[in-house]
């Protein structure tokens, strides 16, 4: 009964919200169903034959979830997943009621959900997942979390609710240490020691030269390890086999995330051939605003990258900035961006030395330019208005890279799709 009532209610609210053109379409059905049909999520999801899997962590959730979903689909699984921006429990309830049949059935084999690390416990209180993939714990929005130890604890708590297994980043010392206390099997993924310098951990982002090296993760055997990467090609050790894939998903951090995705899919599909999985991984395209490339009207290309915190900004700079590309940085200070600008001062911008930034934009365009000035990086123009800045930027010759905080990214993405170009 609850299945039907909740589903019909969720669908009706979604329709009503849509008709009124409200932007709360992602969470409103979830809010109503959660209040009026308690237990809806649990009844709906517990019958999925292959259960529920959660992907969480500070950075890389959306792209990694996409990789896992598409690899499972390529192996014939019917996968239920949440769209980006609805990674709280209410968003998942909305997703479930939308995807269910009118009779309250979910025609799927498995659910793979990206969960916000701060609110994952709300979900795991309702339903314990079979597997949890824990990507990393890094300093993020300080006005939300306070500190990285808190973030790590939240992610670890989620991880330890898994009933069948945990997949965890072996190179993240906080998460890896927490996994050691698990009672279910733990599968580790990581990168080869020689590559660690490309994937700085949180402590290394801010520690100073001349001090003792930050604590390292304890060594553990890895189910999947990134052995090497060059250009878009990545080579992995999967158990006893070595496989390579040319990824369409961009950014070196995603080579690391893909190791996590491979480890999770291996745990779910123990019979899958490593070579086949690598081929399927190569087919995955960038997620919304995470390294997507747009073809502009003047024939040039623009790559849009979400930056959320010092770790993701630094990875983005290392992956996308080339001497011949024009760069724009868009920083807002909404709740979803971080209201506190402190994080910009923890980003290492030295890779930009000698380059000129074409534009900074957003509510904190000036703060961004000031930050760069203290590193002797010249900003040619400061234009707080996002639309105007994007217009100027798109009119410039040559290929472009755009870094944007969350709400700035949403807005710029919408404009790019509507007016400026088509996604490649």
């Amino acid at each position, binding site marked *: 009964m609850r299945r039907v009532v909740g589903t019909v209610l969720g669908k009706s609210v979604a329709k009503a919200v849509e008709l009124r053109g409200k932007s709360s379409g992602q969470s409103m059905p979830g809010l109503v169903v959660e209040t009026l049909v308690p237990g809806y999520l649990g009844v709906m999801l517990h019958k999925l034959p292959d259960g529920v899997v959660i992907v969480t962590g500070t950075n890389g959730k959306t792209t990694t979830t996409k990789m896992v979903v598409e690899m499972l689909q390529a192996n014939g699984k019917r996968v239920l997943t949440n769209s980006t921006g609805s990674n709280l429990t209410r968003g998942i309830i909305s997703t479930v009621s939308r995807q269910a049949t009118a009779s309250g059935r979910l025609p799927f084999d498995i659910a793979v959900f990206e969960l916000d690390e701060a609110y994952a416990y709300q979900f795991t209180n309702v339903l314990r997942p079979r597997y949890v993939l824990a990507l990393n714990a890094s300093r993020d929005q*300080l006005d939300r979390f*306070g500190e990285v*130890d808190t973030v790590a604890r939240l992610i670890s708590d989620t991880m330890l609710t898994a009933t069948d297994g945990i997949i965890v980043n072996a190179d993240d010392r906080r998460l890896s240490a927490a996994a050691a206390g698990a009672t279910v099997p733990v599968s580790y993924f990581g990168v080869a020691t020689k590559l660690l310098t490309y994937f700085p951990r949180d*402590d290394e982002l801010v520690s*100073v030269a001349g001090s*003792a090296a930050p604590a390292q993760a304890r060594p553990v055997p890895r189910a999947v390890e990134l052995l090497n990467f060059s250009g878009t090609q990545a080579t992995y050790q999967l158990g006893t086999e070595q496989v390579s894939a040319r990824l369409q998903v961009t950014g070196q951090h995603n080579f690391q995330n893909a190791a996590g995705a491979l480890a999770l899919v291996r745990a779910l599909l123990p019979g899958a051939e490593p070579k086949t999985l690598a081929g399927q991984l190569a087919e995955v395209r960038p997620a919304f605003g995470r390294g997507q490339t747009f073809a502009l009207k003047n024939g040039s290309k623009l790559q849009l990258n979400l930056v959320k915190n010092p770790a993701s900004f630094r990875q983005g700079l290392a992956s996308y900035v080339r001497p011949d590309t024009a760069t724009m940085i868009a920083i807002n200070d909404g709740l979803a961006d971080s209201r*506190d600008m*402190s994080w910009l001062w*923890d980003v290492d911008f030295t890779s930009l030395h000698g380059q000129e930034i074409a534009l900074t934009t957003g509510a904190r365009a000036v703060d961004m330019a000031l930050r760069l000035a*203290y590193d002797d990086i010249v900003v040619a123009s400061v234009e707080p208005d996002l639309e105007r800045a994007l217009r100027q930027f798109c009119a410039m010759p040559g290929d472009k890279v755009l870094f944007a905080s969350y709400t700035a990214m949403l807005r710029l993405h919408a404009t790019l799709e509507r007016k400026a170009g088509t996604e490649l």
Partner: protein
Amino acid sequence: MNKLHILHIYPNEMNTYGDRGNLLTLQRRAEWHGLEPVIHFYHVGGTLPKDVDIVLGGGGQDSAQTDIMQDVLVIGDQLHALVLHGVPMLMVCGTYQLFGNRFLTRDGQDIQGIGIFDVETIGGSKRLIGNAAVKTADFGMLYGFENHSGRTYLKGTQQALGTVTRGSGNNGEDATEGARTKNAIGTYLHGPLLPNNPELTDNLLRMAMQRKGVEFTPKILSDELSIQSRKNAQSRKY
């Protein structure tokens, strides 16, 4: 060229709020004003350098605070001597609390501070978070971001750094923000504080050079970006 010895204490433990930005700003402005900055880091169990002209400290995680609270007592006397000699200091958030008399945490821990500021901090339940503006007598308006659960109260004749015109300041009750003892400043303002408040930064440099008896004439810098960022900071909501 005149050297300026900057000492940054506990950079690996107390760095939560972009505190590196204060160091970078001090270093760069010193260079722009024709000084030669020399940076020293002090870590737990280390030795303080012989020459110290300015001291910086940042905010940290609770776990980090536990690590350094024993150590700071060891160097407390030396830091007191520096304050007496007029060395300028900027202690933000966690280090501000440890430079006070004591910190009573929410879980009943009584952490002893080094008492450079006659202040006491009591752990609160709700974090005070937002864009703050503070009026000071000596450094003009200060703009920063505050994010703390500790409530700090000034005791006796302890002077505040300023008065909040927007935000919570020391405790959300008496409108005071920060503390000042001679040239040492304690504050909850980060953001980080110095990039958006060049007048304060240049004053720290001036106090440092004055104490050394070195003639210091700040150059006129093009501060167009910080003028704009201050305007923007003024317009932000709490």
